[in-house]
């Protein structure tokens, strides 16, 4: 799969920009702050319907503009598909697929499979569990788009269940009343149903990803140590109802759902030590990169040939690691590399060159 053309209107720093791309390696060159990440962020948005940098959409829309439009032409197995997204902050996005509108923007998921590594990914290993859960779920969706639906349903049930628990908590606190919780059992069943699907999928994903992580880390790491990932669950897929029953009193006392995939974490270790809190900056950065590379190799091993984006990666690596990374991604269907200094990118990856200047990008 490759992106043949990306067109942006009022996205980030771009009033209007279009870039025609080719399969294989391409390098986007420009000083810091000219808008390289803005370009690849837009591509990532087409793939996941979220930015890798911000959790709300407002910053994606160019200053003083109302809506942002991303158009992306994707070539897959010889056929071209056009995805158009209109981002309207605070409202549902509008989307078109091959020029016809879709019911929900979510329906475009699966059209572009993309793995993006960016310096912000350091928060994968250093940030809170939410970031690691999202890492897993995004990868699930890239493999099987139906998980976007499962995840959305789980989140909605969770929100409703929390609202019910909170109202029970408030009723007890304010009026000393017992609030009607007769509907809790119904919410429990749905939470357990969607939760089990999500959890089962995450568990098998981690199992398949782990060997790729170990391998990728070895290629790009400076230091020693074996990269290990382990899913830390609050329940097993079959015991969600049971665990909920055990924590029910505490849930009512605290007014929130205390067990389920939304409370799980992905433990990341280097040898025996956790990465978070122990690893050096360099190790953490290599670890985050290895997680993305592992995702990439896993998708490829399943016959999905995703687009790979490496944002500002090479400047951080020494020559040996640059070459080893280049070797890993050389035969990618499409790899887009951003950098400030072209010399940092190994010769073997210097395909088409694009020069990025503020508000503009052009083929060299």
């Amino acid at each position, binding site marked *: 799969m490759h992106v043949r053309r990306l067109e942006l209107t009022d996205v980030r720093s771009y009033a209007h920009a279009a870039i025609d791309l080719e399969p294989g390696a391409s390098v986007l060159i420009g000083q810091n702050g000219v808008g390289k990440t803005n370009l690849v962020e837009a591509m990532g948005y087409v793939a996941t319907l979220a930015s890798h940098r911000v959790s709300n959409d407002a910053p994606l829309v160019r200053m003083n503009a109302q809506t942002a439009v991303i158009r992306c032409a994707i070539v897959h197995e010889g056929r071209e598909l056009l995805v158009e997204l209109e981002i309207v902050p605070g409202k549902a996005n509008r989307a078109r697929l091959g020029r016809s509108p879709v019911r929900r923007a979510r*329906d475009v998921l699966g059209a572009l499979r993309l793995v993006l590594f960016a310096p912000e990914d350091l928060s994968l290993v250093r940030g809170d569990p939410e970031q690691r859960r999202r890492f897993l779920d995004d990868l699930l969706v890239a493999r099987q*788009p*139906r998980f976007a639906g499962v995840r959305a349903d789980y989140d909605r049930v969770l*929100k*409703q*269940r929390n609202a019910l628990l909170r*109202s029970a908590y408030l009723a007890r606190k304010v009026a000393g009343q017992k609030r*009607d919780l007769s509907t809790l059992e119904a919410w429990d069943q*749905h939470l357990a149903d969607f939760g089990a699907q999500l959890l089962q999928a995450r568990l098998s994903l981690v199992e398949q990803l782990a060997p790729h992580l170990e391998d990728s880390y070895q290629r790009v790491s400076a230091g020693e140590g074996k990269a290990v990932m382990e899913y830390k669950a609050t329940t097993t897929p079959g015991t969600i109802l049971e665990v909920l029953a055990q924590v029910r009193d505490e849930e009512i006392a605290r007014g929130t759902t205390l067990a389920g995939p939304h409370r799980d974490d992905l433990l990341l270790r280097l040898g025996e030590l956790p990465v978070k809190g122990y690893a050096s900056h360099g190790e953490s950065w290599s670890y985050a990169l290895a997680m993305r590379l592992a995702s990439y190799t896993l998708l490829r091993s399943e016959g999905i040939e995703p687009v790979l984006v490496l944002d500002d990666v090479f400047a951080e690596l020494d020559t040996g690691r640059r070459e080893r990374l280049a070797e890993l991604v050389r035969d990618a269907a499409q790899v887009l590399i951003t950098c400030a200094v072209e010399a940092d990118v190994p010769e073997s990856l210097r395909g088409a060159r694009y020069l990025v200047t503020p508000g503009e990008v052009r083929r060299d």
Partner: protein
Amino acid sequence: MYEGPIQDLIDEFGRLPGIGPKSAQRLAFHVLAADATDVKRLALALTRAKEEVRFCTSCFNVAEAELCRICRDPRRRDDALCVVEEPKDVVAIERTGEFRGRYHVLGGAINPLEGIGPDQLKVRELMSRLSSGSINELILATDPNTEGEATATYLALMVKPMGITVTRLASGLPVGGDLEYADEITLGRAFEGRRKL
């Protein structure tokens, strides 16, 4: 901002569901430009609907009399009851011509985020209808979304001890559509939820 009555009218239209500020303005100026008799007829329809439309005391569908047309109809079966969220769902199911039993309109779905629980819906009334003993099958036709599904599960749990058969509408791929046009999520989930024939 306009002055006086026209702005009042725009504001009133704007309060209606699905009407944004631009549509509200268009509707208001449409009313201004219309014949006085047309406007009177509209105003009368609005006030009459509010004053004269009642809710059926048995099923809570909209009605012109104490009981709605369906509850009054002696040809309808008494042993099957179909639960829906809103009166418009009754109309939708009636259009299929598939169902000859009676209805029960809940008036919404369980939605804790909006403070709606069984007490805000016609659940107690449903239970008392079911306890009459003449109903063998309860069909749960609440919406196929998070709140509708939870409502169906809740009712199923409540009704289970009564020995009444409880059924739920099948959901999944829209019938009449081509498989290749179903989006990845819908088709993926339908595939996952496949059943044995």
